[in-house]
């Protein structure tokens, strides 16, 4: 059968092809990444030195809020769905995703959801200004009118995520090539399968939460209003019941990515495949019983604090297993350091540093000193930037030659890596210090004693932001004029997409199931 290939603008509107949809997801997330990044630049410009120089506190709060929302829901989550769309059918030997029309819809919701969300910035009273965690009653009674657009936007992107997750689960359970047993699936497919279950569990909780906000705002309910018998702390419990698994939703697929890349460039099988699967599942299960570690300062009973502290610290065990397995995979391998490998190694090192500060934050008595300071900001940026974003970047470099049949410029790719590596640390490492010194998060101005580290972080942030444009240039250069990729670009790569498929990957993946040994 010929590789039928629709063209023109309708190709993108009507497509049900997993590769086209994956491509749209990835470009969409990259655009959101640049918008969210531009907001971070505004924040860092204001914080470059003490005093209010560039923006008013009211706008500053809108920037911190939108930066968080855009990065979490617009950049990181869609980038992972984009990778899932591209890779899952190729890796399990399926012709496409199981529900291709729904796939189209789940993508095309997103541009509308984020247009709604971003448009709120131009409304009277400004956009959402209550932090991406939108704690009530600041987000209900005291919020600007545009909050309703935020609520609708969150609903829409929640529907999109749930549909994406259903698609992944149905595809993985029904479309595997004969012989592709669950315990033979590549780690990326496993981590995404588990992520999809997390999404289905928690996105409805988020939807319920924003609906309660909506009725509190307009229909006289008092879920979160103490004056009406409601409970502002309940808001936080519901939010973090969604929010903690959400953290793993953002990073588990990246675990899968590096579990593919590290063996390829170590020329050695992944160490402890089954323990990797079980560790991922344990992390996912534990993520449901640790939510209140974000809330040690709200005045929980001691027994509650003890439970959430110990449960949270337990997560270090399966996470440790994963890190040790990656190290053991490299041990006595035959290593080379191409761009995807560099990003993956940086992922392991920097994510581990974020894990260390995570254990520190889990310990309730010391958390009282870290909570809501820049120490927390440093922590979650260490797990999200070098975690989720380096993971996606590594994946794009690694599979790019397979996807397009073109090869990126390795020297430019490595420059992108080294600049990112330097600037990511320059941006986020000093935040540990300003947090320990006592700087609260989400403040537009600060005392002189926090000045040095803020200046470093701002310089790093500008560098980091600029470096991501480099990524754009690398990819465009490779698409336009990259030299032809080899049939199997990475000699250590394994899996159906490398062994049973031509390069570039045909528009329609396996129309007859490949053989799996």
């Amino acid at each position, binding site marked *: 059968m010929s590789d039928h290939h629709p063209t023109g603008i309708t190709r993108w509107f009507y497509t049900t092809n997993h590769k086209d949809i994956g491509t749209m997801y990835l470009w969409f997330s990259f655009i959101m990444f640049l918008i969210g990044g531009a907001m971070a630049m505004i924040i860092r410009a204001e914080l470059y030195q003490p005093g*209010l120089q560039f923006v008013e*506190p009211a706008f500053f709060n809108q920037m911190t809020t939108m930066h968080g929302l855009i990065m979490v829901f617009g950049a990181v989550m869609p980038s992972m769905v984009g990778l899932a769309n591209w890779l899952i059918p190729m890796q399990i030997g399926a012709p496409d995703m199981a529900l291709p029309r729904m796939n189209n819809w789940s993508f095309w919701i997103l541009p509308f959801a984020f247009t709604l969300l971003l448009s709120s910035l131009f409304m009277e009273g400004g956009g959402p200004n209550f932090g991406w965690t939108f704690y009530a009653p600041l987000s209900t009674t005291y919020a600007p009118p545009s909050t309703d657009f935020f609520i609708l936007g969150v609903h829409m992107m929640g529907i999109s995520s749930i549909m994406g997750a259903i698609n992944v689960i149905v595809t993985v359970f029904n479309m595997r090539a004969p012989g592709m047993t669950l315990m033979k699936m590549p780690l990326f497919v496993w981590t995404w399968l588990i992520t999809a279950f997390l999404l289905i569990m928690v996105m409805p909780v988020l939807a319920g939460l924003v609906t309660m906000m909506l009725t509190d705002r307009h229909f006289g309910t008092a879920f979160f209003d103490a004056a009406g018998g409601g409970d502002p702390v309940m808001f936080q419990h519901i939010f973090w019941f969604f929010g903690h698994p959400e953290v793993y939703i953002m990073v588990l697929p990246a675990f899968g990515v590096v579990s593919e890349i590290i063996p390829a460039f170590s*020329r050695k099988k992944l160490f402890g495949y089954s323990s990797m699967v079980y560790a991922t599942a344990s992390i996912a299960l534990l993520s449901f019983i640790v939510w209140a570690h974000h809330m040690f300062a709200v005045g929980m009973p001691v027994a509650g604090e003890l439970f959430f502290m110990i449960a949270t610290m337990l997560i270090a065990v399966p996470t440790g297993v994963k890190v040790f397995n990656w190290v053991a995979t490299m041990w006595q391998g035959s290593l080379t350091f191409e761009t995807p490998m560099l990003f993956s190694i940086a992922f392991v090192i920097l994510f581990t*540093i974020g894990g*260390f500060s995570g254990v520190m934050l889990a*310990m309730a008595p010391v958390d009282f000193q870290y909570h809501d300071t820049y120490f927390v900001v440093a922590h979650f940026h260490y797990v999200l930037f070098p975690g989720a974003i380096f993971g996606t970047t590594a994946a794009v470099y690694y599979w790019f030659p397979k996807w397009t049949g073109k090869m990126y410029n390795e020297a430019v790719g490595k420059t992108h890596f080294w600049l990112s590596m330097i600037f990511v640390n320059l941006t986020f490492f000093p935040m540990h210090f300003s947090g320990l010194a006592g700087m*609260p998060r989400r403040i537009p101005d600060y005392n002189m004693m926090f000045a040095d580290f803020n200046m470093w972080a701002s310089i790093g942030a500008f560098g980091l932001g600029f470096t991501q444009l480099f990524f754009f240039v690398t990819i465009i250069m490779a698409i336009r004029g990259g030299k032809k990729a080899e049939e199997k670009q990475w000699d250590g790569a394994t899996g159906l997409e490398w062994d049973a498929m031509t390069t570039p990957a045909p528009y329609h993946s396996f129309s007859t199931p490949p053989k799996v040994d």
Partner: protein
Amino acid sequence: MAIRRKLIAGMTGLLGFMLSGLVQAASELNMRPGVTETSIEVYELHMMVVWVMVAISVVVFGAMFYSFIFHRKSKHPTPATFSHSTKMEIVWTAIPVLILIYLTVPAVKLLIKMEDASNSDMSVQVTGSQWKWHYKYLENDIIEQEISFYSNLSTPREQYENYETSGAAENVNYLLEVDNHLVLPVDTKVRFLVTAEDVIHSWWVPELAVKKDAIPGFINETWTKVPTPGIYRGQCTELCGVNHGFMPVVVEVLSKPDFAKWLSGKAEEKRIADKTAAAAASQNWDMDKLMVLGKTVYDAKCAACHQVNGAGLPPVFPALKGSAIATTGPVEGHIDIVVNGKQGTAMAAYGAQLTDAEMAAVITYERNAWGNDTGDKVQPADIQAFKAGN
């Protein structure tokens, strides 16, 4: 000789200077140990975790870098073929469990101690509201008569709006200073009852290792016992709206005799203030005097939301300039909203925060500034009449 001695002295001086710089830098790099027994224990636990994490990273990253150097393709062209080892996997599951137990034991002990606010010697109710703290000392053996006051940021607006030209850089307590300190006696277990009026705030003093969320409708408990007199500064740590970055916490700890003196001074101050307020309230004020006092009060209490120019930040913080309430609306309505606030909005009740004269002045100011020009004069007696009628 002399030159040499001078040189040595100079060098030692320089070395000393550099060392002190290093020590200072180190203190900025790390959590401050603070001054209370609890805060020092928190600091020690923090340092213990830091060193455990450093040790783990030396081992893990050490193994990785060993691989990078000795197992690179040029040095190690044939990869090994092993892909699992049950023994190793058991080992690196068990060791982290042991490390975590080692960390958990002291953490549990310290947490239980920190959360035990019983047997306190006195209690202070801490109430957060947009964007100030209110302290109320509850009556007991030490506090013979209830005291309460607001604590507002005292860094002038001019300093943060024009940081470079206003000399703010010389202000070491920039954004960490308030008009009224929370004054506490030394060596006394003080229980804090923390709550809020509007949104969630969080009361934090790093050097006392006390951080508790202030939540509307709920009262949280925490405590401290400070062994050394001094001034300890902190900030609100929960995003609470536009001026979240501008509501610091300042605790001043005095020796017991000084605290007693402060208490009696406070009682005397209140007696005088009541008297002056009564005297001011009985007077008939002229327009100029009302406008002058009105502007001072407005800039301090109202301008954060309604802005100095009265334009507000609509629609959450409405404009007063040209608004119905401040122009065509009845004076009683205007008094009502200032005294009682407005339910369901960010407008707080100022009835207990301002004296009758201050409220009369600020209402007069709002009705006549920025071209509102109603000519209305509100007298302290009007406020009293309104309160009596309520």
